[in-house]
């Protein structure tokens, strides 16, 4: 009797999708997103629903698109009879199940606006996935797809019915014509390069050549953080500074205080996540680092790494201070600068907590899970600070305590840093 007949669709499902850190990075937020979306529909919080729904949908597509890169990088996959079909079936289940849950929840809870949003996110996700199946390089733009989707949720407050119907129609057409877009899931040597680069750079949206040949001073200042990150550290820092200047300018012309503070806090933490991700992917590099003559022991190298993380947190602190101080100065009639102090301390404290948690993690999969929850926690704290109308001295005391705790946790995490040697 053929083994193929006996094989259930879920064979290898857990290991393939949940134990590979790349897809886990998307699946975990997807699960949280499904749960949060249903909860939000029940509670009828209309402001947040577009974001959670679209985020969930895009995460599902991104995880499957990511694994399609892995398939293209696997030289033998089409030679094993039935292997590709088996994995693709599992991928389709990952896409379909959360969407069915969301559609059912929207129908049962009469959240018809959610259905319209889903039609748009499904179109975007389907197009992205189908393109990734043919060209592995497309996945490098995944960050932009996420940004575009988040942007759409802000722009498309009320999606007209005709647009939703058109999106469904185009999605169906795309699915029907999928074989005409080129050879899907064909092995290509470039795919392995793209796969490894994406994993090592933390899905960096910045082109590899950006700021090539610049920033030696900054690299020295943040050493050995820059040792693990390479050019990416400079790129991320430049990106953060660009966003800082953009938000600063926006606040001069328009009243965008709260959202800009939340966006800046979000991006600070996400960029730290990327920095940590790169470090954990380049664990082997420790062995070379600790042989450098500037360090007399492994412990000294670890302490130096932790201090570089602190320097980065102080850089965030400085940017936060200038941004929120400026907002308070020009937008508040009688600025007390409580918000400035509290936001600055909580944002840089959050960055330090991310560094500390990252230092405790040895494996990518555990790191993914730990950092998703840490990011959730840190951003929830910042969210509370941004939303608070009236500040008291006690709030400031809490923020100082939070910051000091984060500083202490980061210092203490040094001895837990895994050096792989």
């Amino acid at each position, binding site marked *: 009797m*053929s*083994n193929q007949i006996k094989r259930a669709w879920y064979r*290898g499902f857990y*290991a393939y999708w949940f134990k*590979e850190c790349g897809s886990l990075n998307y699946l975990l937020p997807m699960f949280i997103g499904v749960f949060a979306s249903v909860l939000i529909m029940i509670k009828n919080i209309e402001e947040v629903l577009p974001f959670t729904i679209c985020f969930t949908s895009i995460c599902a597509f991104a995880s499957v698109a990511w694994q399609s890169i892995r398939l293209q990088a696997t*030289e033998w996959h089409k030679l094993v*009879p039935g292997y590709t079909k088996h994995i693709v079936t599992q991928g389709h289940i990952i896409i379909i199940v959360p969407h069915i849950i969301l559609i059912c929840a929207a129908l049962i809870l009469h959240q018809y606006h959610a259905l319209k949003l889903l039609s748009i996110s499904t179109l975007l996700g389907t197009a992205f996935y189908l393109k990734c199946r043919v060209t592995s390089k497309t996945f490098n733009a995944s960050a932009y797809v996420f940004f575009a989707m988040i942007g759409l949720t802000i722009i498309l407050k009320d999606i007209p019915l005709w647009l939703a119907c058109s999106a469904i129609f185009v999605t169906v057409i795309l699915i029907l014509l999928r074989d005409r877009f080129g050879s899907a899931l064909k092995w290509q040597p470039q795919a392995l390069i793209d796969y490894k680069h994406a994993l090592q750079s933390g899905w960096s949206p910045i082109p590899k050549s950006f700021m090539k040949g610049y920033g030696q001073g900054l690299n020295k200042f943040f050493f050995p953080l820059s040792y693990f990150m390479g050019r990416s550290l400079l790129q991320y820092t430049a990106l953060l500074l660009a966003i800082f200047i953009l938000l600063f300018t926006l606040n001069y012309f328009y009243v965008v205080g709260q959202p800009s503070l939340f966006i800046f806090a979000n991006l600070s933490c996400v960029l730290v996540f990327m920095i940590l991700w790169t470090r954990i992917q380049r664990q082997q590099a420790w062995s070379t680092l600790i042989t450098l003559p500037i360090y007399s022991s492994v412990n000294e190298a670890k302490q130096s790494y932790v201090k570089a993380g602190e320097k980065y947190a102080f850089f965030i602190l400085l940017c936060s201070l200038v941004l929120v101080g400026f907002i308070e100065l020009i937008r508040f009639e009688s600025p007390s600068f409580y918000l400035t102090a509290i936001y600055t301390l909580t944002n840089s404290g959050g960055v330090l907590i991310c560094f500390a948690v990252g230092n405790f993690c040895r494996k990518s999969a555990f790191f993914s899970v730990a950092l998703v929850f840490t990011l959730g926690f840190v951003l929830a704290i910042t969210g509370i600070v941004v939303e608070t109308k009236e500040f008291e001295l006690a709030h400031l005391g809490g923020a100082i305590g939070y910051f000091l705790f984060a500083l202490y946790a980061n210092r203490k995490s040094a001895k837990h840093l895994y050096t792989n040697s």
Partner: protein
Amino acid sequence: MTTALLEYKNVHKIFNQNMVLKSINLIIEPGMVVGLLGKNGAGKTTLLRSALGLIEIDTGEVFTLGANPTQLNTELKSQVGYVPQQAFGYEGFSIREALDLHSSFYCEWDNSLEQDWLKRFELNPDDMVENLSIGQRQALALIMAMAYRPKLLILDEPVASLDPIARREFMLDLFDLSLESGSGVIFSTHITSDIERVATHVALVKDGEVKLFNELDELKSSIRKVNFNPTQTINLSQFDILHQTTNAAIISGYQNEQIPDALHISSLSLEQLFVELHA
């Protein structure tokens, strides 16, 4: 007449305006263990990939188990085993999980062979694939490619990362397997001693061309290095000249005859032949 398991007919392939395969003609029949010997970049991997349909050739024909390799059906696929140079694809799996999934695609999977080789390569089924050394990954890839006893086995530098003992044992197993089941094996390598130990045939690839393809024993007995005086002319027209310098030539087709004006005629080991041809 035996049916060829793998056949190349006047195959050409161009990559970025470079001809990486030139007029390739090769036949692999059941029971043959063909060692593909060549320098890095000689075209060995391209040659093997074209037999699997991973790379499409520009001109000529390739028949894998009698079919076009780009259109192998399920039945034919389950008779081909392949180990790529870079083992990749089961990250996130433990060895046990990877073998469990992989074996489910083959009805001829031999569990006892799998267990034997796990022991031989000292692989712990609970170890995660991404934590394995390059050699261990290679060993796992070999088990995955061979445990269903394929008719045609294509191995791209299969033992380069194994330790000498594992390499020696594996090569002998490979030979036994081929003899037992009448399989055909083609493997690329830089290690001439591996070829000398197990290969029945040798194909020497240089600059995308198969310079030599012959039985190993035949090759050893018919290849000679002939030294001569550079000031004198020497007649070697009755032989195939594989390589010539001002005072020496590597010839094929030698049958113990006298060569007038030759200063010295010497036999060559496979390694010496390889080095001389690339000198």
